[in-house]
């Protein structure tokens, strides 16, 4: 596609990358068909091709974009379904990430919007604050309607409604620390302990650490490591996301230099996509570029790693029909398709594909809080397909999807790793008891 950047603009390395991405787009429109918001709204403006055009114009013009441009970029889930579809390999992820950064830098949102986004960006990546926030949300839950009535706090009501009615206690596996391999040590890995997930669902790390230990893998929760930076990154708060990413790069680099790491594992697929992008994020950084690229190379989803390692034979016959919901960050962001399915089959589960599996469930990080109308429409569409299969359980590789779908169905939703852990000697997931 033709672009009109000045030589002066192209001197900016970010614009230069955006230009290379835009030049690859041939405007064929294949991406429109697999974009969840286009499927719902039928408007080119809410399709990847339309957003690419909006972003192109925004960057070429420079300065603050129009409110309409912001509206349509905000409606993008960053599910990256378009990238799976694009035959010309347009890197939409890097383009939209940069667009969000540009919007954050140049555009002044209404006060309630700014407040809400600032809260999300500060609260979610910090487990201590997040835990406090959840308690506050728990307290505020009965007053959600009241919050909704006041314009400035209207959006906080959505947050309060999403707060769990029961907050799990701290896990015994809170890091930092090292969990030794059982038997002969085959590998040594770091596990991303992350942020919100370890507060909301500590059982996922428990299951991950257990199954790895049983398979002869030593697991490290490195000191100083935390949120991957993905949540603020997708809110355009690039300064915050880079600071968080640097902290992680330092923590793991220390481990690599000290005792060595065979992999850096992630059981929240949204974070996996971000870790694998560290190399790109820091490509221009003289201090971090090499280290960041090394982290990205080592980063792997837990199912990629286990599939390569070889899963032990199952110790039980679960006799269950599992609908596998492929999280967008796994199927589109990381292009991981077969490993989770193969592992579940090998563990003795009957795996079923959900129709329209390429479409997002509407969770998409903070999307369900920022775009409740579209998020709910996608959730209902997904649940319709899932319930049509009448499975015993739904398995997925991302807690966000579990939280999202659980608000609309009674079918139990678990993380893939919980089923794999159970089938190979771990406890039965509480949700299935």
């Amino acid at each position: 596609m033709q672009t009109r950047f000045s030589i002066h603009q192209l001197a900016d390395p970010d614009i230069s990358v955006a230009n290379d991405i835009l030049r690859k787009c041939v405007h064929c429109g294949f991406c429109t068909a697999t974009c969840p918001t286009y499927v719902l709204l039928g408007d080119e403006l809410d399709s990847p091709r339309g957003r690419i055009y909006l972003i192109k114009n925004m960057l070429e013009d420079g300065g603050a974009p129009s409110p309409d441009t912001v509206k349509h970029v905000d409606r993008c889930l960053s599910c990256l379904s378009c990238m799976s579809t694009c035959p010309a390999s347009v890197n939409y992820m890097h383009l939209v990430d940069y667009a969000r950064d540009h919007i954050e830098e140049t555009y002044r949102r209404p006060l309630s919007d700014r407040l809400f986004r600032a809260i999300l960006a500060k609260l979610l990546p910090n487990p201590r604050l997040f835990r406090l926030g959840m308690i506050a949300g728990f307290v505020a839950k009965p007053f959600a309607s009241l919050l909704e009535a006041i314009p400035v706090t209207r959006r906080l009501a959505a947050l309060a409604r999403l707060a769990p009615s029961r907050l799990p206690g701290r896990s015994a596996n809170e890091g930092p620390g090292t969990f030794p391999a059982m038997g002969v040590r085959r590998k040594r890995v770091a596990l991303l302990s992350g942020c919100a997930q370890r507060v909301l669902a500590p059982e996922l790390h428990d299951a991950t650490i257990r199954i790895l230990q049983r398979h002869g893998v030593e697991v490290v929760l490195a000191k100083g490591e935390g949120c991957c930076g993905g949540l603020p990154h997708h809110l355009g708060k690039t300064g915050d996301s880079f600071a968080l990413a640097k902290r992680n790069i330092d923590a793991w680099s220390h481990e690599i230099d000290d005792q060595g790491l065979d992999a850096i594992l992630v059981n929240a697929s949204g974070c996996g996509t971000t870790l694998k992008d560290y190399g790109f994020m820091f490509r221009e950084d003289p201090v971090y570029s090499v280290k960041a690229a090394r982290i990205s190379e080592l980063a792997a989803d837990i199912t990629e790693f286990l599939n390569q390692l070889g899963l032990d034979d199952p110790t039980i016959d679960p006799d269950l029909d599992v609908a596998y919901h492929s999280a967008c960050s796994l199927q589109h962001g990381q292009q991981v398709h077969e490993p989770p399915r193969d592992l579940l089959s090998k563990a003795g589960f009957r795996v079923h594909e959900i129709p329209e599996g390429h479409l997002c469930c509407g969770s998409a990080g903070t999307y369900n809080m920022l775009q409740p109308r579209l998020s709910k429409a996608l959730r209902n569409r997904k649940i319709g397909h899932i319930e049509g299969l009448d499975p015993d359980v739904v398995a997925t590789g991302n807690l966000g999807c579990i939280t999202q779908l659980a608000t609309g169905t009674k079918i139990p939703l678990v993380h893939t790793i919980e089923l794999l852990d159970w089938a190979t000697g771990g406890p039965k997931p509480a949700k299935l008891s």
Partner: protein
Amino acid sequence: MNSAPEQAVSLDQHSALEMPELDVDILGRRNEIIRDLRALVPGEGVISETSEMRVYESDGLTAYRQLPFVVVLPETVEQVSAVLRYCHKTGLKVVPRGAGTSLSGGALPLGDGVLLGLAKFNRILDIDYANRTATVQPGVTNLAITKAVEGRGFYYAPDPSSQIACTIGGNVAENSGGVHCLKYGLTTNNILGLQLVLITGEIINIGGKHLDSDGYDLLGLLTGSEGLLGVITEVTVRILREPETARAMIIGFPSSEDAGACVGSIIGAGIIAGGMEMMDRPAIHAADEFAQAGYPLDVEALLIVELDGPEAEVTDLIGRVEEIADANNASNVQVSQNEPERQKFWAGRKAAFPAIGRISPDYYCMDGTIPRHQLPKVLARMRELSEKYGLGVANVFHAGDGNLHPLIMYDSNVPGELEAAEDFGADILRLCVEVGGVLTGEHGVGVEKRDLMPEMFSETDLDHQQRVKCAFDADGLLNPGKVFPTLHRCAELGRIHIHGGKIPFPDIPRF
């Protein structure tokens, strides 16, 4: 929002393409018209901001861009009818648009016309297995029809390469083909009924769930009419039972001439393949890089030949095609061993156009049809033209039915390259007509081939074609500037030519 945006009055990039003169009266009434349209289509269905409308300034043919006057996205047939009735009354031009994947600029907007997008019409209305039909809204994608019926072992046969995204409404408007049309026909051979809204707002139904409707073959007339006769709001298609067996062969050749000769020999032997496709070296490499289709990379040309039907027949035909390929210097032959492999063979071909985006920032996709035996000559001339214009060309070719898709590679950021690509393309199309072929295979005429129409049709031919348009749209409001190089006023076409003071055929009684 309210003033007429400055871009609205000039065709953005290309100077040689003339579009109908802008209606100054309409431009002056923009605020009033937008207000009226909003009353007909509420919510986000009327788009009038310049920043938003820019997204709609082109379709799949980005060489031509024009900011629309206003974009309207109706959701119901009643809204379509109300909008068209309003346009008719107001004298406002209308450009219908599906998914905007046209490669001939069929949905290029007009600076003084409504761009009527039908992408919100994306529901499947009825599937009737007993009658083997599906009735769908026009914004349903081609592939979505197959997806909806494949669980029961059915499919919709025409499969243009953009089938993942292109809509059935657009397929009808362009009479789209696809890689399997050699055996199963084009869109026109696969639809049974249409609902159409006329420019007057009148909603009419043509055909139904059965073959051979009463009266004139209006279905045939409307299929391929490129949005000049009416707006399609519902389509009833035939669905077919999937063949018992389908296997694809990949055959590599040391030259395009050998591959072309092989195609002729296969068809000459009476073998009707489900699909027969050819790609040349640049296309093979770009497509394989995206799809990892397993194409041989050391060949000059590749044929994909699909054979379908009962298993015994397919096995026999594969053997015969292998013999023919050997006799035509094939350097290697692969036969798909299972369904995923067959799909993989096709995946590369289906992504071949946009995959060229990997090796060139822009491409201009041509669409002409030639008699099959002229292929070696046309390819040789195309190589000469490529040298003359200094632009690379990748060839993707529906070999079975003689439909060429040369992809001319250029860089729109380099001044002069787009113009060179256009001239190169026009030369290729002239060449197609010269060797006994036609200007278009399946992408339609649109704006792209509009000015080449006189290469193929005489003025009398074109006048007759325009009289058909006049019967549907006397004021010329539906998609003007497309297909016909000059659009005559209908009253003009109705006049009797008086030559040398004598009316023609004076002995014929007149009333």
